[in-house]
């Protein structure tokens, strides 16, 4: 043939395309799914597992599911899959608990205001960021009055706050209150003063050594003994205090890691500038230390938010409490899958977005070398 015998001067041969099997979709599949014998085995096993699980799961959750039904018996007549009618009928209870129906707009408003309040914290290009922070600082007061009432708003008993709202309230309050406390504890643990340091270490290690549920038991059964006789103390407030203390100890350890990562030269430079202890901490050390501990802090917050479900054990009706109440209703008995999967999805959405945000921050703050 003419083509095969054609000769080229060195360096004049046109570039040939890479072999078909190494580019495009085919190349990708070959490389990522069938790269080696063990990879082939893994692919086959995974596909088989997916074949076993995925169709059943999808049929159950979507195709055979019943979305509108008034009871379990009705669901079973309409379809063989999940009975989402339960979540549908009780949706507002899952979210608001027993908050009075005509006042639920206040919960919604608080949620909207809350997102506005955290916007400048999450997004560093918010317009008028400095001024906006003033509103963020005021938000806890606004939120408190909106939820509990007072100042001309119809008062609502704290026991009426329930459902997912209660989880969010406990989570957010715990997060906001534990951060300053945790920073103080971390500074105390790194302090030069032996007594202050020992007290902080003892406090942190004690809290970290016991499960949250025992602390909540202490709050619900024991705390009243330590208050002046005759004082009654709102259970939700007691829980909030315990949750705050608990997560402050964890925050303290995260912040301590950040403080330890700051080179000693920074402390010495601050001293050399003649700054006092609090000045050097506020202006030099903490801004750097907090910046590197943000991912850890967010992870602690995710953990705290998940732990808010524990309040169901001491009798508060959070989203899990509403779910368990629904399960003990004769109309809905036996729908454990539906109830808990629904709650799991609620938490997954919140926690996963927080975790992704932490990852985004980590990448943004990561200015060193990366492989």
């Amino acid at each position, binding site marked *: 043939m003419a083509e095969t015998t054609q000769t080229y001067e060195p360096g004049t041969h046109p570039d040939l395309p890479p072999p078909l099997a190494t580019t495009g979709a085919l190349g990708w599949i070959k490389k*990522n*799914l069938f*790269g080696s014998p063990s*990879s082939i085995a*893994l*692919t086959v096993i*995974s*596909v088989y*597992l*997916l074949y076993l699980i995925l169709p059943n799961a999808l049929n159950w959750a979507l195709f055979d599911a019943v979305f509108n039904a008034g009871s379990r018996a009705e669901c079973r007549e309409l379809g063989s899959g999940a009975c989402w009618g339960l979540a549908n009928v009780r949706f507002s209870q899952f979210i608001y608990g027993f908050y009075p129906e005509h006042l639920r707009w206040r919960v919604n408003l608080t949620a909207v205001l809350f997102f506005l309040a955290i916007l400048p914290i999450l997004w560093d290009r918010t317009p008028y960021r400095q001024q906006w922070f003033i509103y963020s600082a005021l938000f806890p007061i606004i939120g408190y009055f909106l939820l509990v009432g007072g100042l001309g708003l119809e008062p609502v008993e704290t026991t009426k706050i329930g459902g997912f709202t209660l989880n969010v309230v406990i989570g957010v309050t715990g997060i906001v209150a534990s951060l300053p406390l945790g920073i103080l504890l971390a500074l105390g643990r790194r302090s*030069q*003063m*032996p*007594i*202050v340091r020992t*007290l902080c270490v003892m406090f942190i290690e*004690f809290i*970290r*050594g*016991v*499960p*949250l*549920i*025992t602390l909540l*038991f*202490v709050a619900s*059964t*024991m705390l*009243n*003994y*330590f*208050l*002046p*006789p005759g004082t009654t103390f709102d259970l939700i407030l007691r829980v909030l205090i315990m949750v705050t203390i608990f997560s402050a100890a964890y925050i303290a350890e995260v912040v301590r890691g950040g403080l330890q990562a700051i080179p000693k030269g920074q402390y010495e430079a601050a001293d050399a500038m003649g700054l006092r202890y609090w000045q050097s901490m506020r202006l030099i050390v903490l801004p750097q230390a907090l910046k590197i501990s943000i991912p850890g802090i967010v992870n602690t917050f*995710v953990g705290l938010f*998940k*732990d*808010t*479900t*524990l309040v*169901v*054990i001491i009798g508060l009706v959070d989203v*899990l409490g509403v779910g*368990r109440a629904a*399960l003990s209703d004769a109309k809905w008995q*036996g*729908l*454990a*899958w539906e*109830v*808990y*999967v629904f*709650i*799991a999805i609620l*938490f*997954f959405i919140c*926690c*996963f977005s927080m*975790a992704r945000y932490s990852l985004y921050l980590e990448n943004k703050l990561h200015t060193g070398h990366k*492989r």
Partner: protein
Amino acid sequence: MAAIEQESEQLTLGRLWSDKRYRAVITQILVVAGVFMLVAYLAVNAVQNLEALGKTFGFEFLQAPASYDINQTLIPYNSRDTHFRAAVVGLLNTGLIAITGCIFATILGFIMGVLRLSSNWLVNRIVYCYIEFTRNVPVLVQILLWHGVIVTTLGVPRNALSPMEGVYLTNRGFYVPRPVFEDGFGLVVIVFLAAIVGMIVFSRWARKHQEETGQIYPVFSIGVGAIIGLPLIAFFIAGMPMSFDTPELKGFNFQGGMVLKPEFTALWFALSVYTAAFIAEIVRAGIQAVSHGQTEASYALGIKPNWTMRLIIIPQALRVIVPPLTSQYLNLTKNSSLAIAIGYMDIVATLGGITLNQTGKEMESMMIVLMIYLTISLLISAFMNWYNRRIALVER
């Protein structure tokens, strides 16, 4: 005159405060005084409150009969036993869930962590989904979910699900055959223990031999072979001195065999799966923390890939993995206290739950429970610190 004196007085006070050394002393004195006052205030309140309620402080209640039942016990227990024994039963149940949970979570976590680094895209994605889903859902929800699934989805003993002969899955528990040891089984146990001791000695010798000559023995496969194979041979020589007591349906429930209660199974499974997701991330981060140059250097020296993994990567990765792994074990142990939500009788459910409610000794019960958890935490971290020191980088 008086004005000047006052001013100099103020000045010295101001100086005291400006001097770093004095300020530290003053601050600490103030802190100690504040803490002391707070503790005293709380103690006085507690004494007054206890008096007002006519309660006394003391631990005699532990000797009183507990008069409640515990559905799963490791040591003999009945409702006429004391509160103290009930607490011990609870503590053993906590230990059982912590140890079995840690073992399963470690195995699952390491497998998942390695698979997460697999070059196979599909496996990588599946493991990623597993990790993200389990990590971001509260463990209490997962415990309740698995418990609910076992109790509501599985049938009563008469409609038991039987995946294989002698194994029955019911909503009252998983019934499995119980091994019955006959005379002569002692030989198998002795051979088994001897094999373990022998392997420890052999692996030490092999490591020393490797350090001296560079020769490597396949310690792992020899070890597995010896520890499993030798007892098996002994088992056949002794004439198979073991039979199985299989569960049988009698009336409304199974008789005989061994039963895993739904509470235990759900708690164990949920806790291990949850913790395994965290361990998988730790393992992945640990392996990734070992610089790629180490692998390349090892290949350049002509070391085979699996030897590179065992001799170069894993020893270095373990240093990064062990400290966070410790806190995961601690977390699992502490999370086992959620048992109370599904009625698994651990230390919180016995001493901190029923005993507390029956006797009204809130303070004493909670103090014991808190102290027990603190002790467990300190013991685990002491052990892991020791292990961590052993494998830590020895620098010149």
